């Protein structure tokens, strides 16, 4: 039987506020345990929450960024459960009336096509602390620095059918929230954590199968692997005639498997009720309009502009806008050299490969936009062949100077002087009489192959500096016996 996978995603996004959602403690990653946990975060008796205006603003920015309806009157609720890293015994969340209601999100797929995802809701809540299980023998350490970090939980409809779509969505979401500046999006530090609700159904069937929820997957690659391995597990059970247990599972990256979370054996019953310590958040049209007016250009709009303004393909545009740093780098380079397509090729080709090889981010690249623009301009004006361009690129990467300085120092100017090339060609022809005879005897199709040998010899003799286009022209004429 063919199975169809059905998935919905929940993303917990840590908001990049200076302070916590309900207290004035610092919201910063990596501090000593419990130095950023104040009496409110610890749930000390009598402490009352006071809502952070920036968290509200960030949530509204996100809502506007996905064309969602903004909840003009949203309320907080208590989600009740016991766990040592949740000091109050409840998490303050929004259950009944979220701040961001239904919206849609256009996700670019790797081939550049767009794919539309329905967002069910996004709501504000507080993060829990962190439990450390492997540091103390027979005891668990609790660090409450993270308790009270503002979270936006973003929930989608079950619109995903493949792991590729899920990963594309997460990447697009990552780029949206970093463009907005509402989160640093650092997945390794837990700023963006993903829960995957996954079920299988026979292809063509309308009814959903029983789903499992895979909690807290924290990298794009793990999302892809967790989906594959959980879908396989479910498929095997179903094909053996067994049923799926609706449960929460953890993805173990080391063993590449999902397993049931034992601590959630008791069926979750969160007994939500309105949080009496907080009043409704009421937002008026003027506030929403003001937030809207301050939004930066978002990835979708920028992608469309790049396609129109720079005549880029869907694919190139989608790649270039995937991070703000990349889009800014591209525009700075094009402004300096005027060559959009060539800039895109260098960035997505040699530059991306070099960054990948050295495991660097674009911000740390040794080649800045003006350096790259210098190189692109010299290829465009014919000073460099694309092959020599690669050598200049290498020089730029090693910080040998500007493109023009490297061309001078390394003596890389392309030889486009017909006289000089003709004498090179004459030497190669007289040194290889057999190949010349073979060429002259061949038909047109075969000649096209054989000419490569002579081009290679000439490029070698010129140390790669001969203008390849000119060489081909002059060589064809010389071999024809003119």
């Amino acid at each position: 039987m063919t199975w169809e996978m059905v998935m919905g995603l929940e993303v917990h996004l840590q908001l990049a506020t200076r302070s916590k959602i309900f207290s004035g403690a610092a919201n910063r990653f990596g501090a000593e345990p419990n130095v950023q946990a104040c009496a409110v975060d610890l749930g000390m008796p009598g402490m009352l929450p006071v809502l952070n205006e920036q968290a509200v603003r960030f949530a509204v920015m996100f809502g506007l960024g996905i064309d969602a309806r903004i909840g003009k009157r949203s309320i907080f609720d208590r989600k009740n459960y016991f766990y040592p890293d949740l000091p109050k015994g409840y998490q303050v969340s929004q259950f009944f009336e979220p701040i961001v209601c239904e919206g849609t999100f256009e996700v670019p797929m790797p081939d550049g096509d767009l794919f539309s995802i329905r967002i069910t809701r996004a709501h504000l809540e507080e993060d829990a602390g962190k439990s450390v299980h492997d540091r103390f023998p027979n005891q668990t350490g609790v660090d409450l620095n993270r308790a009270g970090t503002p979270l936006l939980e973003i929930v989608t409809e079950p619109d995903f059918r493949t792991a590729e779509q899920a990963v594309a969505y997460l990447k697009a979401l990552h780029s949206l929230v970093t463009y907005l500046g509402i989160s640093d999006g650092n997945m390794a530090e837990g700023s963006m954590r993903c829960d995957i609700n996954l079920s299988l159904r026979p292809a063509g069937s309308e009814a959903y199968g029983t789903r499992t929820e895979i909690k807290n997957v924290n990298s794009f690659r793990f999302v892809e692997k967790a989906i594959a391995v959980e879908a396989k597990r479910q498929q095997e059970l179903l094909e053996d005639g067994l049923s799926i247990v609706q449960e929460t599972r953890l993805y173990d990256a080391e063993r590449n498997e999902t397993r049931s979370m034992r601590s959630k054996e008791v069926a979750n019953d969160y007994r939500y009720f309105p949080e009496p310590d907080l009043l409704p958040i009421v937002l008026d049209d003027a506030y929403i309009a003001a937030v809207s007016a301050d939004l930066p250009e978002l990835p979708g709009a920028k992608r469309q502009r790049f396609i129109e303004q720079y005549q880029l393909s869907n694919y190139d545009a989608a790649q270039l806008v995937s991070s703000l740093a990349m889009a800014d780098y591209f525009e700075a380079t094009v402004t300096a050299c005027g060559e959009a397509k060539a800039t895109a090729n260098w960035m997505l080709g040699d530059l991306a490969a070099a960054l990948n090889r050295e495991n660097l981010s674009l911000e740390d690249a040794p080649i800045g936009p003006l350096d790259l623009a210098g190189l692109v301009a010299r290829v465009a004006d014919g000073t460099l062949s694309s092959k020599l361009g690669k050598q200049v690129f290498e020089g730029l990467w090693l910080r040998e100077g500007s493109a023009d300085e490297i061309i001078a120092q390394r003596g890389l100017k392309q030889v486009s002087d017909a006289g000089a090339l003709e004498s090179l060609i004459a030497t190669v022809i007289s040194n290889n009489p057999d190949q010349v005879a073979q060429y002259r005897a061949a038909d047109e199709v075969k000649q096209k192959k054989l000419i490569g040998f002579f081009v290679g010899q000439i490029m070698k003799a010129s140390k790669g500096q001969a203008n390849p286009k000119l060489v081909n022209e002059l060589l064809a004429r010389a071999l024809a016996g003119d």
Partner: protein
Amino acid sequence: MSVTASDVAQVALLARLTIPDDRIDEVTDRFTRVLDLVAELQQVDTDGVLPMSNPHDMEQRLRADEVTEVNERDHLQQPAPAVEDGYFLVPKVID
């Protein structure tokens, strides 16, 4: 509205309360009476009345996003039964 002894046991479990066996009947009876009162309230016609999330007819005030708290770890950890290296220690929890 009738509540069974197993409903009471489930609620007690969620609340992490121990109810001795010889008191289950009494607690079950009291639960039932509370729910009967709620059932009576539910007979009131509330059409057109917005659910009340808070008895105060006010909106949430917001605070500026500023760090106002300093590190008071030593002080705040004083009541904790066990701390080490800055962590609160609790009996082993495994996921």
